[in-house]
């Protein structure tokens, strides 16, 4: 497990992306014997609201946005394709059991490039046996109506609800009804690019500007994503144990400092431009 140690550094480079989605369904697989598809539910948290001296307390569920890394990956793949580069697809099989083609033209099978020279997608996202260089993380989302809500931890407040849908036959008979959870609103996520080269960061920046879809049902109008802004940050996290008494117990103090990187963004994009002219 020593390979995991290389993340252990208090300095990291973060690509922070702010987006908006009118309706998205980043769902976890449905539960057995259930017609409803849910997002990955985390745990209930308490929050405070109200303006007066006496604050009121309430509880809310928080959820994880799944599939952000997939959205970034697909954007990266299609950016590379438009510049005429052949990169890894997500599938490692040419076709499935019934003979449907899985690999679109312009891509090679996952990790097919690993023997000679890894393509840039394989370098960044890895495959079985090769660790990914990046990590994608988003603060959990919740749906709270109180405008004065205050949370103890980093939470994104969006709108979450269930859409009920019915499958019908041609003459209007109900075949099956089912529900799908969705969320809607402004949200942000982060990509940890500490281990990426400048060129790779440049590609990721171009890709996130071209993210269009995430989650389920893009062809039926769901999961459209609008990227509003991005920022490259140099983040230092310092954690210190604060010993309170002689009992040996301590609390952990955490200081986070974010410094925006401007020149690095320009350098990264220039590096990526040079790289793609060289390869394509």
């Amino acid at each position: 497990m020593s390979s995991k140690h290389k993340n252990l550094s208090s300095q990291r480079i973060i690509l922070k992306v702010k987006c908006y989605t009118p309706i998205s369904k980043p769902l976890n697989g449905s539960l057995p014997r259930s017609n409803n598809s849910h997002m990955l539910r985390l745990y209930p948290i308490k929050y405070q609201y109200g303006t007066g001296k006496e604050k009121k307390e309430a509880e809310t569920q928080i959820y994880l946005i799944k599939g952000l890394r997939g959205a970034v990956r697909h954007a990266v793949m299609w950016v590379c394709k438009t510049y005429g580069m052949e990169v890894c697809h997500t599938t490692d099989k040419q076709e499935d059991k019934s003979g449907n083609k899985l690999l679109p033209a312009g891509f090679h099978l996952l990790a097919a490039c690993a023997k000679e020279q890894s393509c840039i997608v394989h370098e960044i996202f890895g495959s079985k046996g090769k660790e990914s260089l990046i990590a994608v993380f988003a603060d959990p989302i919740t749906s709270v109506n109180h405008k004065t809500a205050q949370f103890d931890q980093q939470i994104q407040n969006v709108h979450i609800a269930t859409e009920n849908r019915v499958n019908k036959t041609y003459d209007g008979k109900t075949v099956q009804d089912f529900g799908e959870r969705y969320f809607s609103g402004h949200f942000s996520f982060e990509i940890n690019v500490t281990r990426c080269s400048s060129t790779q960061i440049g590609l990721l920046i171009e890709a996130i500007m071209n993210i269009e879809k995430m989650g389920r049902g893009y062809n039926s109008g769901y999961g459209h994503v609008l990227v509003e802004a991005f920022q490259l940050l140099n983040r230092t996290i310092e954690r210190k144990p604060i010993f309170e008494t002689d009992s040996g117990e301590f609390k952990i103090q955490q200081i986070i400092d974010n410094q925006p990187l401007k020149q690095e963004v320009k350098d990264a994009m220039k590096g990526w431009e040079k790289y793609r002219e060289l390869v394509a």
Partner: protein
Amino acid sequence: MNLTLEGQILTPIVRKRPEFRLFGCQIRITKIRRRYFTKITASKPMYPYAYICYLGKIIISYVCKTETQAMRKLQTLMEIEAIGRFQSEGMGYIQWLKGSLKATFSNGSDTPGNTQRTYRKVKIRQGLPHNLSPAVEEVIQLGILHDFFQTSKHRSKIYVEPPITDQILRERCQQHHDHTDDPVIEKFRKYDHLSALITRKHRSPRLSRYNWKSSRKINFKQLAQEIAEVSTSVYKLYRYIYESKDLELLNESLEFGHSSLRQHLLILINLIVNDYQKEVF
């Protein structure tokens, strides 16, 4: 010195068990909330693979000799951001909250009586020992045959019921999920649950009794006939199950498509024999 560090799990940790060793420390997840994290691969879009994952509080404990060692370890442990699989997808993130640093007792644990828990694997015997009492034989016989009959909860797990003539045994097998006063069934039920707990690891639903390993069709009629032929002797029955290649290809539960019926039966019987030999049966 005994160093403990406690944190809140922000996104689920994908690991098989809530207790494990990592970075030379003992790690334990408490106040567990179990979740399933699903993945879909391009080649099998219909069957999402479900990984078990845990939410709750995470507690790391580390034992060492000097205070400087402990402080150095604490510095590296506090830098850990995530644990488990799929970290690149945002899983397994942790926020560290507090901890303690205490002198240890001579036996190396934080309280004098606290001993470490050990997991022992169930050893699978090649054959049954020859000193079993008739009472145990009765439970073992039920244990081996119980899943081959239709009950209130499921059909025969090999689709065809073995043509066994012993009426009492037949009824016992068919009623093993119901509420009865039969002492044999009650004894057996505890071991059935225990064995199912051990073999059910990854949830992955299947529509047929064939598990994910199976690649060929099984002649269920012949299988049922063969089982019925050896059903009079528990020793022969056990050997038959032990050597059977067909039972390896069937699952014990439709919800757990990676389980094997053979493994379930063998573990069940060996648990009974272990307890019999320890005289706690």
